[in-house]
């Protein structure tokens, strides 16, 4: 699939030729990473202010750790050629169940983590079975999953509340200082830069997923199934099991992401993670994952989440801080990346067919 392009492009020394020699996955990843760094450096140079402090970057990470995890799962499913729009609903359900368990049932943190994993796994298994073995469109299955999760969230508890469990609050407020990147505030006191535990979890998951997708047989199967189901079948890949696994892992990651989200906000609410599924899809696309399947990379997804959040910060810091600009900016960003993808792909296709 993607890799075979390598041999068909003529060898050349120019940058253009080098770009054309990349696989689809790497090309889109490169674009995303370059755009992110241009944007961030541009913000540091022109806007200065908060962007000069490294902590701004860590704040973006802190508030998006859960989204990174969700988007990793989403990318995996999209690489396999499916989609999972239930992740936002699962996140809300997980945070509500954990909150109720911790506060009303006097549970411990370990139990809450188990609940989160169990809920995620249950959604993953059921949706995976229906998509892979019953051949129902993933969109419909996960749409129902989203409805179910959102509805169940209000059945579990309909009013939002903050969790007061001591062990949990201690975990929530744990800050991991990043050495050397702190800043001195107006009073002259050194404020260390910090990240939350969720960020570490997210980074571990990105690394694990990257290794899984790049260097394991199972990971390559995901690309093969997404690239061309028919030829994957002929190569002897168990297409159904691969699809099932992609949904299972995505569900599990939604469970973990749900707990990380819960750890960040520290409350259970039916309105938690509203629209997270769309943010996850948008981040995956900005990160270079294509919905047609077979192309994508979780490192790109990681930068996709950061880009989406950075542009929002930039827009609000240059004065467009009315609520509606958030939506419009996100959409414009998504639109831009979709067009870039579309144009790049059609140019490549023409070049390849010409040579």
């Amino acid at each position, binding site marked *: 699939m993607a890799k075979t392009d390598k041999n068909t492009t003529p060898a050349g020394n120019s940058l253009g030729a080098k770009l054309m020699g990349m696989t689809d996955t790497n090309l889109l990843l490169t674009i995303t990473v370059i755009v992110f760094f241009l944007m961030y450096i541009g913000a540091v140079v022109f806007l200065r202010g908060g962007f000069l402090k490294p902590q701004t970057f860590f704040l973006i990470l802190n508030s998006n750790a859960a989204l990174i995890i969700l988007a990793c799962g989403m990318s995996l499913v999209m690489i396999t050629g499916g989609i999972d729009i239930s992740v936002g609903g699962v996140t809300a359900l997980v945070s509500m169940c954990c909150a109720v368990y911790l506060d009303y049932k006097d549970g411990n943190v370990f139990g809450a983590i188990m609940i989160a994993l169990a809920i995620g796994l249950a959604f993953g298994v059921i949706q995976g079975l229906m998509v892979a073995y019953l051949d129902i469109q993933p969109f*419909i299955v996960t749409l129902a999953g989203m409805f179910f999760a*959102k509805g169940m969230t209000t059945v579990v508890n309909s009013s939002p509340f903050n969790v007061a469990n001591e062990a949990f609050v201690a975990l929530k407020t744990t800050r991991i200082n990043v050495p050397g990147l702190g800043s001195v505030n107006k009073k002259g006191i050194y404020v260390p830069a910090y990240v939350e535990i969720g960020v570490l979890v997210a980074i571990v998951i990105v690394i694990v997923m990257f290794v899984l997708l790049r260097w394991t047989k199972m990971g390559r199967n995901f690309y093969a199934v997404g690239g061309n189901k028919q030829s994957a079948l002929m190569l002897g890949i168990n297409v159904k099991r691969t699809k099932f696994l992609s949904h299972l892992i995505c569900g599990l990651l939604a469970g973990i992401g749900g707990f990380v989200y819960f750890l960040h906000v520290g409350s259970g609410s039916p309105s938690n993670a509203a629209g997270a599924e769309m943010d996850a899809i948008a981040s995956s696309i900005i990160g270079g994952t294509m919905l047609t399947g077979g192309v994508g990379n979780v490192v790109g997804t990681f930068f996709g989440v950061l880009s989406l959040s950075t542009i929002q910060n930039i827009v609000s810091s240059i004065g467009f801080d009315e609520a509606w600009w958030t939506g419009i900016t996100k959409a414009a960003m998504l639109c831009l990346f*979709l067009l870039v993808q579309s144009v790049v792909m059609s140019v490549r296709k023409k070049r390849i067919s010409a040579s």
Partner: protein
Amino acid sequence: MANSENVKTSSAGSWKNLLRNQCFIPIAALLLLAVFNLIVDPTFFRITFGYNSAGNPVLSGAIIDIINNGSELAILAIGMTLVTAASGGQDISVGAAIAIAGSVILRVLCGGNARPETLEAPIIVAFLVACVVAMLFGAFNGVLVAYFKIQPMIATLILYTAGRSIAAWINNNELPVISDPKFAYFGGFIPGIPIPTPFFIAVACMIVVGLALKFTNLRLYTQSVGINQSSARLNGLNPELIKVMTFVILGLCVAVAGLIKVSRVSSINYSVIAKDIEMDAILAVALGGNALSGGKFSMAASIIGAFVIQCLTTTLYKYGVPATALPAYKAVVVILLVIVSAPTVREYFSTLVKKMKLKGEVA
């Protein structure tokens, strides 16, 4: 009810025909819901005649609720079916687009004034402007899908994300209220007619689309583009243009639904109006047995599907399910329906039936 009795007495041949008919699943679901309501609480079917606060004669009851509130959904299902058939994907921005269309209508009617004493423009002008705007947004989606070859769900994700923000921006985030009673006719009752107006609007849309399907090549063109785009092109069609056209038609449906939605409350709430309606509209298409991957479609089945969903919603409300928990119940029903209608499950059962028949013959 008479229908199901006929089914029981008919021969095996017509059984098969009936099962193969696309309308079977939605009609069966509708009958199932009707029977359920009949058993549990027959008052579901009671229609009462009364007068509303304005002194106009109105009919009320659960059935009236269904045909009233299901109207927007049915109108959207029409456009969604065409989009699904031609592009093999769904438009998830219809809810956001309704917010935009509604916002445009209020903006034109109020002219920037949040509490106008009189309307600044005739309602028809406001509606036409909303139509143009909604069709332009439809064309935007369509161009992304057809010419830039972006998957429909992803292309419309853009408008889904931005739509409600744009709607708020159009009216400067104010919530205009229209006091003119005439404006409320479209979402309520016209004096002297006891049947809710949205139903008439929905029926008018159905008639128009029915005539269009019968007397134009709309069905042929959309289906051929959906089934095989390359062979459609080789046969002299312009697949891109046809795809854009289906999105523009959906835009028109959105404008009509938007008019009904804002007329119901004579105002607008940008984050709540038509929330999750895109999901319901897609479900209506899926319930109608139309392949979500494009190709052949049955408009009637989609429209019945829309009313099935509304019937389900109304039934659940009637039994005291809170609005926030509604999606969970809906999801269970939807999952059961898609499992029953899944090709693999159907195949399994048809082979099961065949085996049983063989056994019977042997015996």
